[in-house]
């Protein structure tokens, strides 16, 4: 620092001079006010969380009362007849999230291993931020790109290929005509989840003590055997927590999914259109035809909130246990 003003020590001296000159009453008042403001801010954060849970459940009471838990399995969603069931949305949610996790977990961990173990520091400091930059792309841009660039490619090249290669699996059906569908949504979610898993896992892998890695190498382990035998086992809980955080992101993504999933109304195969809980809310809320439909969308939001919070709390619990374990075994 060049100026004396910004130097903590000189700031301290100036403060001390002023404090001794000022009355104690002002200081006591200042302490109390600042403390009060901080407590207020903390309470506001708590109130926001409680308010979200209350309002969303409150909005859903009508639908919860009408459909009960059957809402989760019924697949009819017909605003005209005031019949609503979330089966299609929950199916879409499960399929797209599963596809995203299936791809993103191995890719994310592989990237993390590359960054932490293989790449020289110079390269790591370039590629690491680039991977994180992938998470900074707004979802609406990713969805726009998904429907105009990725989807045509998928429907003309990738899906016919997958259909002919592994089409015997019942989940892969005929290629879609537009490219909009569950498969495209799953891929877009993969792009969103990979940087989350990769950056958290990389930080974890970098914390593995060098002596342990050296020990494995000294015993004659190759680099991969060292990863398998030392790095992965000692960080596994943290990596699982990272995956849960990624899952939470995939479950809750509304806009990008709404753009590429094609707003399907039935349970269909992978290349066909579908819906997820979040995308249905984004697509239908403003155009809701009656209060029951709006309330059913709130019901979907309750389900999303519950699954999302469970994923988040699981990640937190794992992290806490992991850190405590770490601290004790060090």
């Amino acid at each position: 620092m060049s100026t004396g003003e910004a130097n903590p020590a000189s700031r301290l001296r100036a403060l001390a001079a002023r404090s001794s000159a000022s009355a104690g009453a002002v200081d006591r008042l200042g302490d109390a006010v600042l403390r009060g403001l901080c407590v207020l801010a903390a309470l506001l954060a708590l109130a926001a969380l409680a308010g979200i849970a209350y309002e969303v459940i409150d909005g859903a009471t009508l639908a919860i009362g009408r459909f009960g838990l059957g809402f989760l399995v019924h697949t009819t969603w017909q605003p005209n007849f005031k019949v609503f069931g979330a089966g299609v949305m929950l199916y879409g949610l499960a399929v797209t999230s599963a596809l995203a996790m299936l791809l993103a977990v191995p890719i994310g961990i592989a990237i993390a291993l590359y960054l932490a173990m293989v790449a020289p520091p110079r390269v790591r400091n370039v590629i690491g931020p680039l991977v994180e930059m992938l998470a900074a792309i707004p979802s609406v841009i990713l969805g726009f790109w998904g429907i105009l660039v990725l989807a045509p490619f998928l429907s003309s090249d990738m899906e016919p290929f997958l259909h002919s290669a592994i089409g015997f699996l019942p989940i892969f059906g005929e290629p879609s005509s537009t490219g909009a569908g569950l498969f495209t949504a799953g891929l877009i979610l993969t792009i969103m989840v990979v940087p989350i898993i990769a950056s958290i896992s990389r930080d974890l892998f970098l914390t593995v003590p060098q002596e342990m890695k050296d020990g494995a190498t000294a015993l004659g382990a190759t680099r991969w055997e060292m990863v398998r035998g030392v790095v992965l086992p000692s960080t596994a809980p943290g990596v699982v927590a990272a995956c849960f955080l990624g899952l939470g992101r995939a479950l809750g993504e509304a806009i990008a999914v709404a753009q590429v999933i094609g707003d399907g109304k039935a349970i269909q195969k992978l290349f066909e259109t579908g819906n997820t809980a979040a995308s249905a809310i984004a697509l239908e809320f403003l155009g809701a035809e009656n209060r029951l439909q709006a309330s059913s969308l709130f019901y979907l939001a309750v389900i999303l909130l519950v699954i999302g919070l469970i994923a988040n709390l699981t990640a937190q619990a794992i992290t806490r246990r992991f850190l405590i374990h770490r601290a004790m075994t060090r």
Partner: protein
Amino acid sequence: MSDLESTSEGGTALLDPPDHFDDLFASERLDPARPLTASRQLRRRQIFSRAMESTQTAAALLAVAMLAFVVYSVASRGASVLSFEFLTAGPPAIEETAGGGIGPMIVGTATLVGIATVIAMPIGILAALYMTEFASRRAARLLRMVLDLLFGVPSIVLALFVFELIVAGKSESGFAGSFALAIIMLPLVARASQETLLLVPQGLRDAAAALGVSHWRALRGVVLPSALGGIITGTVLALARAAGESAPLIILSAVFSRTVNFNIFSEATPNIPVYIYKASTAANPYGWARAWGAAFVLLLFILIVNIGARALHARGRRKMAR
């Protein structure tokens, strides 16, 4: 072939001595002068290890390629639309025509994010101060958990919450959108501030106390200024995140006019994310062209902010460490 080659398979070779460990040395055939070359087993393990490293490298390249692909797609289509008129004019009266621009959306997004920052920044900093300076360890951990959970709430759920709270029974409004964006920014600002405040040396606080400086003066005069850089970086990153957030705005500030308006309490504010979203749902190449331009402007802003914040962050860390 030598005995070294017949060691037991794979990983167990690391832990257990080979079965014939004893007669390895007893053996007449073991020649001390034999050159130490890798056995076929070892070569296989090494090749496998190399293969895994290549896979990992390929995964990293795939991610970077994906980023390059998306950025290139947006830039190549968006840059050609860019002009002074595009950045200042409103979209044409009929969406299915060429020309026009996204001026009102740029102004609107700046307004929405600005108001959200004004709401989220003080609350976030105070919450962080509470965690680092005032709260017991238990209370701090609880608040940290609350902030993490708040961060984990899907933004579309947040949109419904704010809809019930502010919009229901009235009209959409830009303020409702800003309010939702502020809730998204709050945990980001608070966590970034907390992390920076924790980096401020405890000695500074002790020194202030020893000199008889009251707590709030010490925080205002010593602790906060020392942490200011990190707090601002965190806030700007949160701001960039909020600028691209679309889910709340699609519910709270979606039905907007083609002109700049600042009636944030009674009207929806035009904004870039919703404009792109609407273009993606219509089969209209002219709208797509404008949306690519809008996406380019938004992406450019977000990437520049991210790169800048990263550079500042790295410099700040180095300075703190000194």
